[in-house]
Structure formats: structure tokens, C-alpha cells
């Protein structure tokens, strides 16, 4: 089914492919897709060497999803801002390049940005949080929020724990994307069922902010056996 008030603003990454795959498998089609193309010739954070828009191109055509390619990889650029504000949808599912942070201008453009954080909120805010939770609790997490000015501080729609994957060495590209996609699907299913957005935690003020994990701790998280 088409989601008439929901669009996507995405980058050409593995995570985007997973999101779209999961949405299509669950018959949840965005009304429109804005795709930020990387034409620089360099791989951007969140991309691996295999990332292209090949899968997106195929699925867009197959599912008849209206789309537009944007020649910018910067979510805060004028080009992206104009493309978003010109659209009628009020909610945008966001899947950007790694490390990108939405600035106030776009956050206050009259749209809601639905983001799936790779970590169990509010406990694990910030970056690479699933590695920390693997060390602390031997589990991973993903949480859906609407973005605001606070890093991972927006209202929490849904949050879930997940067991560690069999192969922890590919968390960044495979497992992380998969569990985020699951939470995205479930969040949208809840929205359809309830007829509105319901929040598990509306005031997301607690928790700690984690920073990019040092490789030594990353190796401990990956190789941990308990």
C-alpha cells in the first residue's frame, strides 16, 4: 500500500537498500523518493565499494515509486532543502550518509524526519552505540525517532533489543541495517494501525551520548564471547 503522507530522503548506501527492501516486502511504499547521489568518485561514510543505486533503480521501476535524483550528498544543502520543502508529504524517512547531522534550517522546515537510530534509546545515544551495548549487555538495539536539534533526543516511537549476530565483523554494513529496517517497518505498521504517531517515550531526555568507538573496544565487542 502507498503511504500518501510519507516520503523518503535517502543516500546510496546499504542501509537505504535494506530499508527499501524491507518496506517493499511488507507492502509499505513511500509516496515519493528523493535520492542524494554521490557522484564524487569517492566512497562516503556508510557506503561500501559495492554501493550503487542499482538496487534502488530496479525497485523504483518495479514498484512504480515516483522519485527524483538530487545532485548533492549534503542533507543541509540548498538543493536538498528545496527538494524537500517542495514536496507535499509531511513525514520523510531519513537514511543519510554516515556522520551527517541535520541542521536547524531543515529541521524547522515544517517536515518531520523519521530516523532509525542504531541503538536502544535513550540509554545509547550517539555513534556506534551497538558496539558499546554488545560489550555492556551482549545485545544490540534500534529505535525510531523524529529528529530534533538534540542528538538522538527526539521523541521515541519504538525501540527494540536484538540478539548479537552470528558474524559480528560485518555489523556496520549488514546486521545494523537489517535491525534498523525491522524497526522502521514495525514503526510504520503501528502508524497505520493507530492512525497516528504514538510515542513510546515522548520526552527523550535521559541516557548518555556515546562517541565513535575506538578500534580496540570495537574488536572487543566483535570478538566477545559473553
Amino acid at each position, binding site marked *: 500500500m502507498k503511504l500518501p503522507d510519507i516520503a523518503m530522503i535517502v543516500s546510496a548506501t546499504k542501509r537505504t537498500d535494506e530499508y527499501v527492501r524491507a518496506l517493499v516486502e511488507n507492502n509499505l511504499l513511500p509516496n515519493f523518493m528523493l535520492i542524494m547521489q554521490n557522484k564524487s568518485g569517492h566512497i562516503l561514510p556508510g557506503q561500501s565499494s559495492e554501493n550503487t543505486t542499482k538496487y534502488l533503480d530496479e525497485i523504483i521501476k518495479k514498484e512504480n515509486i515516483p522519485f527524483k535524483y538530487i545532485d548533492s550528498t549534503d542533507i543541509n544543502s540548498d538543493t536538498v532543502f528545496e527538494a524537500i520543502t517542495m514536496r507535499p508529504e509531511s513525514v520523510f524517512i531519513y537514511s543519510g550518509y*554516515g556522520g551527517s547531522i541535520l541542521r536547524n534550517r531543515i529541521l524547522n522546515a515544517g517536515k518531520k524526519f523519521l530516523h532509525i537510530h542504531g541503538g536502544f534509546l535513550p540509554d545509547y545515544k550517539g555513534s556506534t552505540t551497538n558496539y558499546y551495548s554488545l560489550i555492556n549487555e551482549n545485545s544490540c538495539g534500534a529505535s525510531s525517532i523524529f529528529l530534533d536539534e538534540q542528538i538522538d533526543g527526539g521523541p521515541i516511537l519504538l525501540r527494540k533489543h536484538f540478539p548479537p549476530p552470528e558474524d559480528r565483523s560485518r555489523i556496520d554494513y549488514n546486521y545494523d541495517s537489517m535491525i534498523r529496517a525491522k524497526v522502521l517497518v514495525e514503526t510504520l505498521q503501528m502508524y497505520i494501525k493507530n492512525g497516528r504517531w504514538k510515542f513510546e517515550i515522548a520526552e527523550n531526555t535521559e541516557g548518555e551520548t556515546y*562517541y565513535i568507538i575506538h578500534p580496540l573496544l570495537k*574488536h572487543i565487542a566483535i570478538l566477545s564471547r559473553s
Partner: protein
Amino acid sequence: MNIIYPYSTDNRLLNPCSYMYTPFEGLPFFKGHSLSRKSFMESIEELIISMKEPDDLKKEILKHSMKESLGIAKIGTIEDYSQKLLLITKHNPWISSKHYPDTNNTELSNYADMIKITNLKDRVETEKFLVCLFCYVSGNFAHSDSMVAWTESLIQRFEVTKKIYPEYKPGFKKGSGKNDVLFLYVLFAISLSIYYGQTQNLRYLNAVLKINDLIISNAAQLIQDGVNACLAYFVLIFEGIHINRLLQSKGIQDEIT
């Protein structure tokens, strides 16, 4: 197979490392890291043994750091750090763990009141703050919510900029001054090392690991000052012990050895 640990080979003040998407290299990575740290520690031992007695404030910081280091080193590790520390004490009696000044009327106690009267809206003099933090974590002074908040702010500043500045605008905003004052880095690292031991908060250990990469990558500058070198030595002892404990608890240690 030996892996070269790459994160402290390049000067991290000139070329900060983002640590984004670092590659997974398996068990040999731990050996590479350990060899890198050990090699650096061995290279500065002579310097530390023969360091000059510093001013009163730094002397107190070193005394308390030695005490903390001896305390943690006694709890069995792979390397016998205790013997190395006692050797340092033997050649520098003023750092002896037997003589701890009362915290009243000492250089450190002069910093006690600072944190009570300041708040995040003030301009930050980083060295003063870091001495306060050191006092706080080494147990000399009572719990302070302000201290925790300031520590969080400096962690955030360092993690985002990979630098520590001598001054910050009110609210720990933009830093100013030269960002290559290694004393600030080693002092922050040893405080966070002690704090991690008390709290097991991985965010503190994460910052320590990055600071240590930076310190070691500036070895040439570090060895110009015996105090900095000695504090760096203590920090690396802490790091080694904390990491070994984590490896043990996660069932990885046996696979490395």
C-alpha cells in the same frame, strides 16, 4: 602474524583520526596494540627514572598518580607493572607512595573550592579544571554534579575536535589557545582512567584510548618533559590493566595468549 598498530604512528595533533569505520583485523590486532604501547613505555623508562623533581602541584599529582597506579597494579596483570613502579619510586623518593600529604593546606586543596563556585556559564581554564577533576577522581573531594557535567562537556569537546585547548568560552564552547599542551592531555587521560576504574563507563575508556594514541604519536614532544612522560607511563599502565580485565571478562584473553 604481527599487525602494526596504526593509530599512534601519525602525529594526531597534526592529523587527527576520525576513527570512523575502522577495519576489523581479528585477534592479531590486540597484539599489535600491546606491542606498540609496550615499546613506547620501554622507550621512556630511563627518562622517568631520571626526571627532575617538579614544582609542588605537579609533585602532588604525581604522588597521587603513583598511589593509584600501585593500587591497580597490585591486582595481577600480565606485565608486572608493580616492579616498574617501585623502580621509579626508588630513583625518585619524592614520589614515594609512603608519603601522602594531608589534603588540607596542600596545592591540590587550593583547587577544592573552585568547582563549587563555578558553573558551565563561565569561561573555562582547562588546566585548573583538570586539576580539580584529578582531585575529584583520586578521592580527595566530595561528589559534585558540576564536576560530572564539566567532565562530560570536555569529553564531548575532545571527541568532536580531537583536541584539548587551554581555554574554552563559557559553556565549554569553542576552545582557544595552543592545543598542543601535552600536560592537559596526560592529566585528562589519567583522571579518566581512574574514573573508568570507579564507574566502568566505557565512554571514559574510549576517550582514554584516543588520548593515548595522540600522546604516543607526539613522543618527541612528550619526552621533553619528565612529568608528562611519567604521567603518560601511569596512564598506559591503567589502560593495559583495564583492557586486560575487559579481555578476560569477555573470554578473549586466552585466545590472544
